[in-house]
């Protein structure tokens, strides 16, 4: 297997000759390497607001190469692209990767950026294997070259409700009231809106007594937490990003807001940086999110390789879904026996992978390019580790619910 490599040579030559280079030509280098390797453009937000998550996704791709080799999959050669957390850059970089010879694209973590890349791939007939992006429309627009093994927003919301019921049933502790605290950006508003609207349809045993939006760039959450305290909910349900999740936890402790539990849907509360920053106060939070199945053999291999490469980090959604995207690409390439786009597309359509790391039985795409059901799990923070509570078949521990009071930690 080759190490990750940056794309294009001929464009570089032109660049060197062009001096100012503003109009440097980009002659594609499609014939530079033997056809035994599939050139995969890994397009992620490596700088800008989502840089940390993009880098974490890349870790999943990095460890995939040796694992896939050991599993007998053919060679993948990565070409790296940075969306800079911008939609138009995502589009330009996708064009750049394809011009430089990428035969498939993996990306892009963010829905808007993935949508931009999808259009380029659709128009250029290059398969796009989505690692993370939940916007339902992505696989509803009739695209033929987009393949997604990630739950859509409604799947995440539906599973969040189902897993809560199972959690409450298993522990015998059911909250009667819940406060919904959410970041006021596109992601947070959209997800919180769906949670709020769908709670009655799922006949949840509790009432959402307060819906509290907050500024995504906020640093002081004392007012929001005071509002939570005032509403006296049994549990708190948070839709957050990383820094706000850390700050909210600290504020909950400072104001001594003891709850039956904290539920989270979305990033933030399970991430490595959160666990480090909050220590024992980050314990017992239940995350209702897309996750991986620890009991699968491939997960064990991934976990071991990841621990070796990044001893200080825990394996999360970012790496596992990027890993599975690489696995999908390698598997399709193996079955297609060719790097030709139509062969890859046909092979992707017939994907039936059971040796993946994500939850669920198999990766099979429907006619829209979507895996019809990608289950989500319930994952609890536990002393710097992450314990899978649900689904039952992937569970690695028992829930601590109600959570331990702040003072007894």
């Amino acid at each position, binding site marked *: 297997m080759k190490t990750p490599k940056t794309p294009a040579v001929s464009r570089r030559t032109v660049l060197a000759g062009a001096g100012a280079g503003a109009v440097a030509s980009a002659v594609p280098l499609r014939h530079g390497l033997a056809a035994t390797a599939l050139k995969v453009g890994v397009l992620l937000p490596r700088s800008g607001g989502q840089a940390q998550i993009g880098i974490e996704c890349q870790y999943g791709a990095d460890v995939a190469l040796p694992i896939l080799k050991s599993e007998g999959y053919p060679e993948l050669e990565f070409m790296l692209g940075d969306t*800079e957390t911008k939609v138009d850059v995502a589009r*330009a970089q996708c064009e750049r990767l394809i011009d430089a010879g990428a035969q498939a694209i993996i990306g892009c973590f963010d829905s*808007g950026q993935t949508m931009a890349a999808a259009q380029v791939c659709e128009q250029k007939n290059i398969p796009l294997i989505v690692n993370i992006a939940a*916007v339902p429309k992505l696989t509803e627009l009739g695209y033929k070259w987009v393949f997604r093994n990630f739950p859509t927003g409604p799947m995440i919301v539906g599973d969040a409700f189902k897993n809560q019921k199972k959690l409450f049933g298993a522990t015998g502790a059911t909250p009667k009231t819940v406060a919904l605290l959410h970041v006021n950006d596109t992601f947070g*508003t959209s997800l919180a809106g769906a949670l709020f609207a769908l709670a009655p349809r799922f006949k949840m045993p509790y009432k959402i007594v307060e819906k509290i939006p907050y500024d995504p760039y906020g640093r002081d959450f004392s007012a929001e937490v005071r509002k939570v305290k005032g509403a006296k909910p049994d549990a708190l349900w948070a839709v957050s990003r990383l820094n706000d999740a850390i700050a909210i936890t600290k504020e909950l402790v400072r104001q001594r807001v003891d709850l039956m539990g904290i539920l989270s849907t979305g990033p933030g509360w399970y991430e490595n940086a959160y666990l480090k920053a909050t220590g024992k106060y980050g314990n017992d939070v239940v995350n209702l999110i897309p996750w991986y199945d620890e009991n699968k053999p491939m997960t064990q291999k991934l976990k071991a390789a990841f621990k070796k490469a990044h001893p200080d980090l825990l394996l999360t959604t970012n790496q596992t879904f990027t890993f599975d995207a690489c696995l999908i690409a390698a598997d399709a390439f193996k079955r297609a026996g060719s790097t030709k786009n139509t062969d890859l597309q046909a092979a992707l359509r017939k994907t039936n992978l059971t040796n993946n790391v994500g939850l669920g039985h198999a990766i099979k795409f429907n006619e829209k390019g979507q895996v019809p059901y990608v289950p989500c799990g319930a994952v609890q923070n536990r002393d710097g580790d992450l314990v899978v509570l649900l689904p039952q078949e992937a569970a690695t521990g028992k829930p601590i619910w109600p959570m331990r009071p702040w003072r007894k930690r």
Partner: protein
Amino acid sequence: MTPVRRFFGPLSRAGLWLGGAFLLLLLLLPWWGSSYIMTVAITVFYLALIGQSWNLMLGFAGLLSIGHALFVGIGAYTAAYLFAAIGLPPVIGVLPAVGLAVLMGLLIGYLGFRFAIGGVYFALLTIAFAEFVRIVIDHVSWLGATEGFFLKVSAADRHGIDLANLRGAPEMYYYLIMALALGALVLCRFLLRSRLGYYWQAIRDDAEAAQALGVNILRYKMYAVAISSGMAGVAGVFYAFYQNSLFPEIVFNIERSIEATLGSIVGGVGTLFGPIFGTFILTPLGEIVTEAIDLLKHWGVIDPQIKLDGLKLLIWGFIVVLIVLFKPKGLWPWVCARLRLTRPEAEG
């Protein structure tokens, strides 16, 4: 003197030749450039168009806007919605799109000027309106709300040219945005040398003196806001049909507004060619840094395993700071002087 020569009046013979050669190079880009280069060029012209519109407000009339993404977004959403809902082709949809953008501009302008809100406070007003509209669209389900609004595209769209519906090959988008950006340049050149332009410049330089001489400040400021927001609305229509997906958080983001100003600041605020020159420096600069890093990795100067993500933004930011520090009037007047692109008595 022919109208063409009159239009290019400030340019020297060297400037005309250089400009002509550059224009020819750009016209032939689809033949010599890759689709990646074309995508970058489309971004350059798109930002140049918005930059020109922003420059008209600040550079010509002295009105600072940091919410220009608002007008772009209104144009984008209006045309896209009318196309998706009733099949109104964007060639017609551009009229209500521009109309709404202008109305919004006039509303902000009236509130600002009527109550004598100027300078940074006017800028804050534009930001506030952009945020307000973003939040509204976040909650309007028929505009896709936070989930986004999408226009369908297919592989077939890439071939052929349907200018009325703005569906077609990348070359079509390239020539269209090029024409729009150059059209904005011509319009600004015309306005700058018209009575309107002189009034704006008088207001910009000393509003009280202009008023004392009988210039109706409110009216002429409103003209500036209306024309500027209309131009941004046109850019929005292009954006919607080129990107085919609209997310409120992305379209109305303040970052987009700031991005639109950078080309003008680097090129030269208040100059005619500054915004277009600035974007031609800034946007490709970022791409060149990326390519240079790749090149150094390829040559083994930098270890390929070292991840330099974000370095491009650091270098780009550093260069912008240098330009602003050492050429605060922008690069275009300096380049003109160095290369004698304009006649001594003329300005950019």
